[in-house]
C-alpha cells in the first residue's frame, strides 16, 4: 500500500484531480481554497496540463465550458460567492450536456460573509446550477482521503452522465490536514468523445455544442433525456455510510464535516446509554431517500445536524414523508457546533433551533 501523506483538503483536491487525469484547470482566487489554484499552477505544467487564472469566476466556468466541449477533463474550484457567479456557466453546461468537475469549499454567507466553515450552499449545490430544469450531481466528502478519492472519481461520473459534478466541501475540509494515501498519477483516456468539437476533420460530420432549442417540444425531449440520466444516476451512484446502534431510538442525519462532528457525538451518546445511529449521505444528488425512509419507519425521531439553518433537512423530510418527527440542529455563518453540544441534544433533547443561534465556540477565522 502506498505511503500516507499529511496533506490538507485543498492539496488533496488538486492532487486528486491531477492523479485522476485532469489536465486543465481554470480558476479565480478566493479564500479558503487558494491552495488549489496555487497547487495546479505549480504541478499541471509538469504533466503537460494547462492552468489559466481567469479574470472572474464567470470567465473561469466558461473556460471550463470551452475545454469540456473539446472532450478535455477540465475543472474549476471556488468558494461560495464564486460558485454563485458560476451558476450561468453550469446551466449552459447542463443544457449542452457537457461534463466537468466543480469543487465548492463552502464558507459563511450570504453576501461576502466570512471565510469560516459552512454548509449553507446545500441548496445552491443540489438545486442550483443556475436556471432551467437541470442539476449538478453532488457529492459531499467528510475527510481529506474521501475528498481526494471523490474528486478523482467525479471526472468519471461527469463523463458517464455528461453532466457537471459538484463536490461540496467546506472551509474546515479545505484547511484540515489528515493522512492521505495517494495513488500514481494517471493519464486521461486517449482520444476524444464522438460529440467533442475540434474541427470536422477527415470528413466526419460537424459537431455542435449548444443549449438553444427554439422548438419547445425538442427542448422538452432534451430535458427528459437529461432527467433520465439523473434517474440512472439514482440507480447507480447513491452512496451513504451508517454508524452506531443497530436498533436506534434516534437517527442522526448529517453530511460532510457535520457528520464528522456527529460521529464523535454518537459515540458519546451511546456511552451515555442512548441508542442512536448516524446516516451520512455522500451523494446529495442523487439522495439516499430509500435508506432514510426505511429508518424513518423504525426510529422515534430524526435529528438533522447541518451547518445551515434548514437546507439539508428538506431532502430528509422529503424522504421521510411524515413517517416520524424530523428536528433540526443547525449552526450558521461560519460557526460550528461541537460534538459535546450534539451529544447533549441527543441525550436530553436540549438545544432547539433558537438555542443554536446563541454564540458558541468560535470557528471563524482563516483556513490555511
Amino acid at each position, binding site marked *: 500500500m502506498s505511503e500516507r501523506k499529511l496533506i490538507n483538503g485543498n492539496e488533496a483536491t488538486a492532487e486528486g484531480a491531477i492523479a485522476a487525469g485532469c489536465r486543465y484547470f481554470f480558476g479565480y482566487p478566493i479564500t479558503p481554497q487558494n491552495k488549489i489554484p496555487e497547487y495546479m499552477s505549480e504541478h499541471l505544467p509538469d504533466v503537460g496540463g494547462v492552468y489559466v487564472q*481567469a479574470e472572474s469566476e464567470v470567465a473561469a466556468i466558461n473556460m471550463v*465550458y*470551452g475545454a469540456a466541449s*473539446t472532450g478535455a477533463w477540465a475543472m474549476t474550484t471556488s468558494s461560495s460567492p464564486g460558485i454563485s457567479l458560476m451558476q450561468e456557466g453550469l446551466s449552459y453546461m447542463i443544457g449542452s450536456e457537457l461534463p466537468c468537475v466543480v469543487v465548492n469549499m463552502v464558507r459563511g454567507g450570504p453576501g461576502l460573509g466570512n471565510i469560516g466553515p459552512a454548509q449553507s450552499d446545500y441548496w445552491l449545490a443540489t438545486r442550483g446550477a443556475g436556471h432551467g430544469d437541470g442539476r449538478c450531481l453532488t457529492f459531499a466528502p467528510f475527510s481529506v482521503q474521501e475528498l481526494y478519492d471523490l474528486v478523482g472519481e467525479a471526472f468519471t461520473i461527469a463523463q458517464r452522465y455528461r453532466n457537471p459534478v459538484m463536490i461540496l466541501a467546506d472551509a474546515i475540509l479545505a484547511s484540515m490536514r489528515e493522512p492521505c494515501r495517494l495513488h500514481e498519477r494517471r493519464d486521461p483516456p486517449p482520444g476524444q468523445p464522438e460529440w467533442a*468539437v475540434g*474541427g470536422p476533420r*477527415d470528413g466526419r460530420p*460537424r459537431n455542435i455544442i*449548444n443549449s438553444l432549442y427554439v422548438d419547445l417540444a425538442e427542448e422538452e425531449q432534451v430535458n427528459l433525456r437529461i432527467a433520465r440520466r439523473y434517474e440512472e444516476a439514482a440507480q447507480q451512484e447513491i452512496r451513504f455510510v451508517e454508524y452506531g446502534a443497530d436498533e436506534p431510538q434516534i437517527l442522526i442525519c448529517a453530511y460532510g464535516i457535520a457528520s464528522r462532528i456527529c460521529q464523535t457525538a454518537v459515540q458519546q451518546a451511546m456511552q451515555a446509554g442512548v441508542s442512536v445511529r448516524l446516516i451520512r449521505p455522500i451523494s446529495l444528488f442523487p439522495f439516499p431517500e430509500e435508506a432514510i425512509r426505511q429508518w424513518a419507519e423504525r426510529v422515534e425521531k430524526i435529528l438533522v445536524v447541518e451547518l445551515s439553518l434548514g437546507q439539508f433537512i428538506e431532502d430528509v423530510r422529503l424522504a421521510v414523508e411524515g413517517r416520524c418527527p424530523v428536528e433540526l440542529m443547525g449552526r450558521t455563518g461560519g460557526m460550528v457546533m461541537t460534538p459535546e453540544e450534539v451529544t447533549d441534544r441527543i441525550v436530553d433533547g436540549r438545544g432547539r433551533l433558537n438555542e443554536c443561534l446563541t454564540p458558541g465556540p468560535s470557528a471563524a477565522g482563516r483556513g490555511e
Partner: protein
Amino acid sequence: MNQSMHQTPTDQVKPVYTYPDSLTEVPLRYCPGCTHGIAHRLVAEVIDELGVRERTVAIAPVGCSVYAYEYFNTDAVQAAHGRGPAVATGIKRTRPDTIVFTYQGDGDLASIGLAEVIHAAARAENFTVIFVNNAVFGMTQGQMAPTTLMGQKTTTTPRGRTIEQGGHPLNICELLAQIPGVAYLARETMIAPKYVMRAKRSIKKAFQAQMQELGFSLVELVSSCPTWWRMKPLEAFAHIEEKMLVQYPLEVFVDKLKEANDSSG
C-alpha cells in the same frame, strides 16, 4: 454537398463565384439590408482560402447571430452572452491545433462581455474575434448598446442618447489597441465593394495572425441595422458613412503580421 446544389466546375465554364464550403446551406434569417450575411460570407471565404475548415471551431454569441452555429460549416459552440472569448480560451488551450473564432455583436462583446474580450487580449489568447458593431441591440428589439451614437434614437433612448442618461459610446478597437497581447486589430465596414474587399483582407490577416500564433486578433465590422435604425437599407449605408464612421473611423490599429514578415524577410 454544397457542390451538388450549385454549379459544378467543368472544363468549359470557369466559376468566378461559388458557394463557400465553410457556409452551410441553411438560409440566413437576417433582416433585409443587414450586413451579417456579408460578414458571414467573408469569414467563410477566408476559412476556405486558408484551407482550415476541417480544424475550425466557431463560437456563436447571444444576439442576432445566435444561429451562427447553424450557418458556419465547421464545428461550433454556442456560448453564453458575452462569454465567447472565455469559451474560446478553453477550447484553444486544450486544442491548440484548432482554429477558433468568436462571432460577437456589440451587446455581446462591448456590453456584457467586455471583461472577457479585454482579458483574452491581455493574455494574448491565440484566437480571432469577429466583432459586428451596429450600435444597437437587434435581437431584443432595438435597445441602446454601449456603441450607440450620441443622439441616436433606440427603444430605450426614445429621445436620443444623452450623456446624462446613457453615457458615451465605447470605442472597442481604441481600447484594445493599447494591449500588447493584440497581434492584429482593424476596423472595417461593408457598405460598398471596396470596403468589402478591405474587410476581407483584414479578416484574412486576423486568421493568419492566429495561424502564426502571434496572439489575439480582432476585426470590428461597422454594420447596419435598418430594422431598428428604422431606415431603408440604402439609408442605413449612408448613415454608416456619414455618422458611424465619424465615431468609429476605419483603421488598421495593430498588424504584427507585417512586423513578423518584415523581420523574417
